């Protein structure tokens, strides 16, 4: 008994092993050829043809007979998942007659492996399925073709192509790209807007400082064409200026305007009622020469002795400038009425003297960017309300010609945009106040940008930021120098990220209308006449809905300049060329040398706050008939949908009507009302309080 019992399992194993070996050894009917290879860079489709006779209907994949009414094609997907980022392998089989019916199933590894995809429509001449390496991995996949109602007389042909993936891969922005509109100040306002600054008040009105003019702009969300510009200048900030600066505290809506005076002081006023009334303040607390004054503000960091609010105004206001070879910053604890002792942030041995705009994080950390610290670009940072400062730079950055800029997200993530030495538009991200950096990249590369100036950055949610800069596709550092023959064309570009800076959507925000032709000289007072009309910086802020508003001075406003006419305008005569005589080149001599106040404002697409998103459209809608119902499946890309709306059309795609709505995160629906032997088309979209997404693809099914 014991011996029998011990032998029996061995015999059973041998028998099973023999049978398995025999099964494996049997030549399963397969496609011709039976195998293929594909990688992410393949450009020639992989092809094969069927060889099975078919004839007897295979009711399902599980009941078909290999080599008779089903067969396999094995495809090896080469490379890594990263190689396939944003790509997929499209599997398609074609045949001639709609009456013929094949289905396909794709399995990972082997026929018994997990199913990646399938397609089983009727009354068609093709079936499509996908292998998505970012979802399914790479390696071996088996395409199982089932002869549902097919014979060798209408044999199928198979192809596999590399196609864009409908799936959202991490790090690849597929968001609805924002759209923008340009608003120029109406004459006679805003003619002298070199180095402008902008703020958005609590009421949503924008303030634009154009030299001595403080302009208030009212937009109308119901009419994107409408913008009303009004001069609301304070008396003491409209007299004289060596440097103008405006700042609106986003936490309180208070708007500050300061003008640097040649007598080494600043005149400052602030308003809490959209410029209807202004309160003069002490102005800078320090001796405010030499250059580049700037104001910023935000919450106090709690717990710093002696450096909290001293009155009803809750936030810290900072004023920075240079004096005696030092860049210093002073804190106001009473809402900008008075400023305290100026604290040196750096000296000229450590960093260049100029600096970008002050930014304050939600936790009170203060940042002042600099284009040239220890041969790189970075910022001074204070974690004690401006009492002490540390200098930190972006590794690998090269000192530049114009100020870098900082955008701070709601969680404190810092987006640092800069025109790198050589002119590329660079972005770097830090989550620890500049101790370490991530996602350092050229965001202008997709637009072919070679020269950039005037980086400006703003941020919203932790993973969202915008970066505005002037860029030219024309190479050559002379675009930033004194060369009036430089033939570059400059536009305003807006780069936006929705994934924490891993990827950026970069758009020309001033299409068809250059900001400048020729050189934008960045050498300060060393610039020759006619090259420095735009002065030293632009500005970028967001409104309460997270829509970027960029302020810039437009140096090219006439039809001749906009259209690139070689006309050598009147402005050329003092410095070269002959006025009115073409010289065969369109360059700085054909520029207008104006500086007209202009705003680029977002009017559509995703904003920097997700709570205002319309949902993203679902993709990859599939419809399959599982008698007597039609099952729909789709991919949900939205994080903010409240429901999905499903529509159905019978026989064609012209009569869609709502079939059903399903709830948050749904990815399937079963249509139990389908009639037999009918062609249906389906589509689905996501909806929330902000609006509806676009429609998915339409999916067709025949209820056989």
């Amino acid at each position, binding site marked *: 008994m014991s011996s029998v019992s011990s032998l029996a399992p061995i015999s059973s194993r041998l028998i099973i092993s023999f049978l398995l070996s025999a099964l494996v050894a049997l030549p399963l009917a397969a496609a011709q050829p039976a195998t293929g290879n594909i990688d992410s860079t393949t450009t020639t489709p992989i092809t094969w043809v069927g060889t099975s006779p078919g004839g007897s209907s295979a009711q399902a994949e599980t009941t078909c007979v290999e080599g008779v009414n089903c067969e396999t094609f094995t495809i090896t997907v080469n490379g890594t998942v990263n190689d396939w980022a944003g790509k997929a392998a499209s599997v398609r089989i074609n045949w001639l007659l709609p009456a013929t019916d094949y289905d396909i199933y794709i399995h990972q590894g082997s026929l018994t492996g997990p199913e990646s995809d399938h397609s089983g429509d009727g009354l068609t001449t093709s079936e499509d399925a996908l292998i998505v390496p970012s979802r399914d991995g790479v390696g071996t996949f088996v395409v199982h073709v089932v002869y549902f109602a097919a014979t060798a007389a209408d044999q199928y042909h198979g192809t596999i192509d590399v196609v864009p993936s409908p799936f959202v891969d991490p790090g690849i922005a597929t968001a609805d790209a924002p759209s923008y509109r340009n608003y120029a100040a109406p004459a006679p306002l805003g003619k002298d807007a070199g180095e402008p600054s902008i703020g958005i008040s609590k009421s949503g009105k924008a303030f634009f400082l154009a*030299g001595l003019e403080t302009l208030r702009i009212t937009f109308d969300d119901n009419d994107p064409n409408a913008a009303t510009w009004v001069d609301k200048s304070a008396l003491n900030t409209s007299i004289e*200026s060596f440097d103008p600066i405006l700042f609106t505290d986003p936490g309180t809506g208070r708007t500050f305007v300061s003008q640097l005076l*040649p007598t080494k002081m600043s005149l400052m006023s602030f308003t809490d009622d959209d410029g209807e009334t202004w309160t003069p303040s002490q102005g800078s607390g320090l001796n405010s*020469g030499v250059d580049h004054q700037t104001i910023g503000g935000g919450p106090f960091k709690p717990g710093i002795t002696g450096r909290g609010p001293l009155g009803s105004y809750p936030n810290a206001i900072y004023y920075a400038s240079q004096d*005696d070879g030092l860049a210093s910053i002073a804190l106001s604890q009473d809402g900008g009425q008075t400023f305290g002792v*100026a604290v040196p942030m750096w000296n000229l041995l450590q960093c260049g003297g100029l600096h970008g705009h002050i930014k304050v994080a939600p936790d009170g950390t203060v940042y002042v960017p600099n284009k040239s610290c220890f041969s790189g670009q970075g910022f001074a940072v204070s974690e004690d309300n401006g009492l*002490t400062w540390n200098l930190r730079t972006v590794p690998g950055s090269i000192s530049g010609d114009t100020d870098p800029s900082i955008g701070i997200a709601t969680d404190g993530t810092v987006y640092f945009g800069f025109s790198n030495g050589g002119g590329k538009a660079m972005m770097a991200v830090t989550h620890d106040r500049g101790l370490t950096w991530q996602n350092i990249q050229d965001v202008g590369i997709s637009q072919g940008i070679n020269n950039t100036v005037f980086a400006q950055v703003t941020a919203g949610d932790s993973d969202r930021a915008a970066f505005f800069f002037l860029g030219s596709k024309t190479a050559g550092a002379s675009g930033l120098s004194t060369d009036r023959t430089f033939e570059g064309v400059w536009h305003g570009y807006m780069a936006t990220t929705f994934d924490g800076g891993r990827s950026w959507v970069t758009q020309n925000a001033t299409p068809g209308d250059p900001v400048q032709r020729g050189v934008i000289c960045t050498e*300060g007072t060393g610039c020759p006449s006619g090259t420095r009309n735009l*002065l030293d910086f632009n500005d970028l802020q967001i409104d309460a809905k997270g829509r970027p508003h960029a302020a810039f001075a437009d140096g090219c406003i006439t039809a001749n300049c906009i259209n690139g006419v070689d006309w050598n305008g009147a402005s050329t005569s003092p410095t070269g060329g002959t006025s009115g005589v073409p010289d065969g080149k369109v360059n700085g001599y054909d520029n207008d040398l104006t500086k007209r106040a202009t705003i680029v404002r977002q009017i559509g697409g995703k904003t920097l706050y997700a709570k205002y998103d319309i949902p993203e459209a679902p993709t990859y809608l599939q419809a399959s008939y599982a008698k007597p119902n039609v099952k729909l499946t789709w991919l949900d890309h939205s994080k903010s949908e409240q429901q999905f709306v499903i529509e159905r059309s019978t026989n064609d795609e012209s009569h869609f009507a709502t079939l059903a709505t399903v709830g948050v995160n749904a990815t399937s629906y079963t249509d139990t009302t389908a009639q037999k032997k009918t062609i249906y088309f389906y589509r689905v979209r996501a909806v929330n309080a902000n609006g509806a997404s676009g429609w998915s693809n339409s999916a067709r099914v025949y209820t056989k």
Partner: protein
Amino acid sequence: MSTPRREVVGVSTGMSRKAVHAKLGANGTMLREERKRQEVWELRDPQFASAIVGYDEEWRVRYITAVAKEKIRYADVLDISAAEHRTDGRNHTYIWKPSPRADYVVRARGTDPEVLTYLTLRRIAGERESEEEDD
């Protein structure tokens, strides 16, 4: 009572650029020029590691700021009892006009209550920046 300093590392306000270069060049190297007619110097001086010099439109010294290398007390360079003292508890600035007729002030800054980091001589007579508008 400290002796009023009329110069720092041999440079005084109103001095010509040529004279500055002769003085500092003998005991240091100019690292670079900065916008607004400013120069950055590295020094071989027992007391000061470096200096920043700013000029007016006629290239005369508007200010000189020297960065201390060794411990220099505020009291060594100005009259503390007569100087204006500004502090937030950590940062200290002393501003001293040596005499009513002096055309310059001495400024000493630092984060130590006794020892300075920066020493500046700045001209005050006819003070006006050298640079053009909108820069």
